[in-house]
């Protein structure tokens, strides 16, 4: 975090266009489309905490 805002903006923009970043996002979006309903239905925490 020892960088200025301007530097951070430039760094983020550079990062966003990197190939591996784009492919990670694409992978995640692709995975999220598979059996989404089933996944959400399975995520249960009955009697959960606090």
């Amino acid at each position, binding site marked *: 975090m020892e960088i200025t*805002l301007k530097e*951070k903006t430039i760094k983020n923009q550079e990062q966003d266009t990197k190939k591996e970043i784009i492919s990670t996002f694409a992978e995640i979006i692709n995975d999220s489309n598979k059996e989404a*309903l089933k996944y*959400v239905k399975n995520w249960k*925490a009955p*009697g*959960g*905490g606090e």
Partner: protein
Amino acid sequence: MKKRIYGLETEYAVIIAPEHNSTFTPTRLNVFNILREVVASHYKVLHSKELKQGVFMQNGGRFHHEACLNALLEGVIEFSTPECTNSRDLAIYSKACDEILEEVREELQEKLQYKGFRGNIFFGKNCTDKKGNFYGTHENYLVCDPIIDYRRFILYTGVTIFFSIFIIVVIIFNLPVLACILVLSLMLLLLGILHLPLRLLGYTSHTIIEIGNGIIELIKIMTSLKPTLFTRIFGELFRCSTILWAYSYGFFLRQLVFKKMTKFLTPYLLTRIIFSGSGRCLDSLPPGEMSKGIPFELSQKAETIKTVCTIFWDDYYKPVFSLKNFIKNPRSIFKSEKRLHIMYCDSNMNEFVTYINTGITGLLIRMIEEDHSFLDLNPKNPISALREFSRDLTMRKQIPLKNGTSMSSLEIQKYYLGEAKKFYSSPEKVCEHTDNLLHIWENILNCLEINPHLMYKELDWVAKKDLLNEVIKDREIFFSCNILKWFKVLQGKFQQEWIFMSEETLKKEIERNLSIWNRKKFFAFLKKEDLTCQDFLEKFQIFYQLQKIDLKYHELNKNEGYYYRLAKAGLITMLSSEEDVTKAKLYPPHDTRANIRGFLVKTLAENSLNAVIGWDDVIISDYAKHIYFLEPFEKELPENDRNYINSLVKMEE
């Protein structure tokens, strides 16, 4: 600089996803019991002396099973970090808890497979399961809150009166239960006494035998019922009978303890969600509301908070600050150093958020302890303001305050930052840790003001929102409150493959699966919203894709969870190295009493000595020895106790 104790309690959801051929589906309690065995085979552990079947680990932390009274066989797994003296250590120990769970997951799954379970088990670190259950993280701070003399007198009297009332209430509540048990036992005894001589005389009284059979049947039915039903009934009865007492006691305590803390910390806690929120894709909207794009809010737990400060007694009435520990440990009310328990805190995947979140809270607590003069920026209605802050992604919406003005969440945060910078500018107060936290805080607020996307590597909600945006991209999509309602109604009936059906087949499927009443209502709704079945299903699919991202971001599986996938691609700012986390799994913090606990757990477990341990004491049952370590900053056992433990080890050898 004055030292402080920091602690974090995190509840993890246990996700059980059985496959079709699974012959056994474990309860969450089953999972916890096996998990405890597996963890014990990797690390040294000692049973906790408190209820909840927990164990303390060699790093000084604890994990246990946490469940509501109405569902004791289910629930969540809670890890508590050992006591730390700074937020960096705290974040690393919290990360170590995540890693321990993930490390033992496969072995746990294998053990369940022996019992017939087929499928997946994994853990989630978030705050809601989208089915109305909420869990999450709580923060604990040791704060200085001395009691002034006259208040001390009121407290003594009040606590005595309230506890006497509690005992009376509990006895009254238990009377019918006790009476039932007594009557049943007497009836059985009477039956036994009468039955035998009559049988010997060859006389069988039909009535007596009938009654006897009836009682036996009744007992059989009672014992065959699921224990959850009993706990549910008794849990609800207990809650209803004591709730009034709990809230009036909470009201009484609120007048005397943490007055300054709650007054000056509340505006900060309600608005810190702009960086500490873990983000949530909403599954419902207030009546008449329409969401343009993704229905999203900053904090997962904002919806559950119903009050600022009280005793947390009822799941439906969660406070920001909980005073519950004063019931368990009423003596601590009179101490000048007390445990401040903050219930309102989202579970964060990113350890960097945990670090700044707890670190900044620690800085502000110190300012309040030292009587720094703050403006009173409490919102007119803190609970509705919290909802507004959470839904306001621009962070600029003006919320009316008690002092007659209005401010946005970003402005309130900037005010607190300004005050902290002033306070910590004096040379005797500044230190590297403080300086770093203030610098990061300022940087975050500036970035959020310009463009939140700048913080995608650091903040959970921003990273998640970026992923969700990727699903929608440039498409214009709307979700009305009514469509979300129908999504919920139809969730159980809809099948994944319906997405690919033609409009006609789809209509038939819907007709086949809905009742006449619902079918009529559903088609009327489609007409009103000018949607075809296909449109509805398309939105349905997008909506559940968004919901999946919202949940899977928090999955602890390193190959599957989206947070970890982003981290692997270098898209997350890491606070700790692998070495730090490995060390935190094995060793306690060296500067608190967790060091003593860690030593005791390791030594006693290694030598198989029969003992149970708590946060501030250990009982070695084999030798009837009770050792206390009450002081939070005490790092070593007194010499005589240490020698005693060493002598036990020698004897065992």
